[in-house]
């Protein structure tokens, strides 16, 4: 079981992700609607893992991963984005993300990724 921070600008997707993760036995300790809020929540809550959208207002997911990794170089972040092109995946991994899930996704795929990253 992991303590997870869910980051997505769409309240609907946060709700769906929380539902999928809780059913998979994980605990949701916080949520954020953009990268800037995610960074603040990460510092405050120190989650085991962060699920991170990319296209968000204020601060996008790629920038947020970079900032989070400055705070904790071992931070575990899984990207959950509709932008699945190779260049975006490479950018996310270079920024420090551990895995990349393309929307629309199935609950099984999300849980599989989190198990892999948590180890």
């Amino acid at each position, binding site marked *: 079981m992991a303590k997870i921070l869910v980051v997505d*600008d*769409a*309240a609907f*997707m946060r709700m769906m992700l929380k539902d999928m993760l809780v059913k998979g036995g994980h605990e949701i300790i916080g949520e954020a609607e953009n990268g800037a809020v995610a960074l603040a929540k990460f510092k405050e809550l120190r989650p085991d893992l962060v699920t991170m959208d990319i296209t968000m207002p204020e601060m996008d997911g790629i920038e947020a991963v970079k900032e989070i990794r400055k705070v904790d170089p071992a931070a575990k972040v899984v990207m959950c984005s*509709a932008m699945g*092109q190779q260049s975006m995946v490479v950018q996310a991994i270079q920024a420090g993300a551990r895995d990349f899930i393309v929307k*629309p996704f199935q609950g099984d795929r999300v849980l599989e990724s989190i198990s892999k990253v948590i180890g």
Partner: protein
Amino acid sequence: MTDGAKITAVLNSVLESAATVIPMPITPGQLALVTAHDTHVGYSILIGVTGELHGRLVLDTTQELVSSVAETMFGMQVSGEMLDSFAGEFGNMLGGNMATKLSERGVQIDITPPTVISGNARISGFKKAFRIPITVSDKGQVQCYLIFED
């Protein structure tokens, strides 16, 4: 790549994206070139496009169709603010998948967060746009407007 080739790539990518994202059978309709006078939209999602192409993708549809997609995709009925939130995400998924398909054709774009428009509006500030209707099973239509600035 010529502008014409880029536009063809965008149109094909939008249709492939719709087939990937919408969990129901879809049927594309006739492509039309329209002006601002022809762009009266109802419940719509607007996505900005940046990168190698500059413009907007507008998805004109109905709350009923968006609700059907949410129910088929996630097995739950949504309404009110949560429906608007899903509508934005639906636009994000369509735009994001379109960006992925376009990159496979050698055109790199990025998209902006979605804006959901409730009620009736007319889109202006451009000369011409492409409109392609996509019929979704027996649930209704999504009118896709592709507006290029250049």
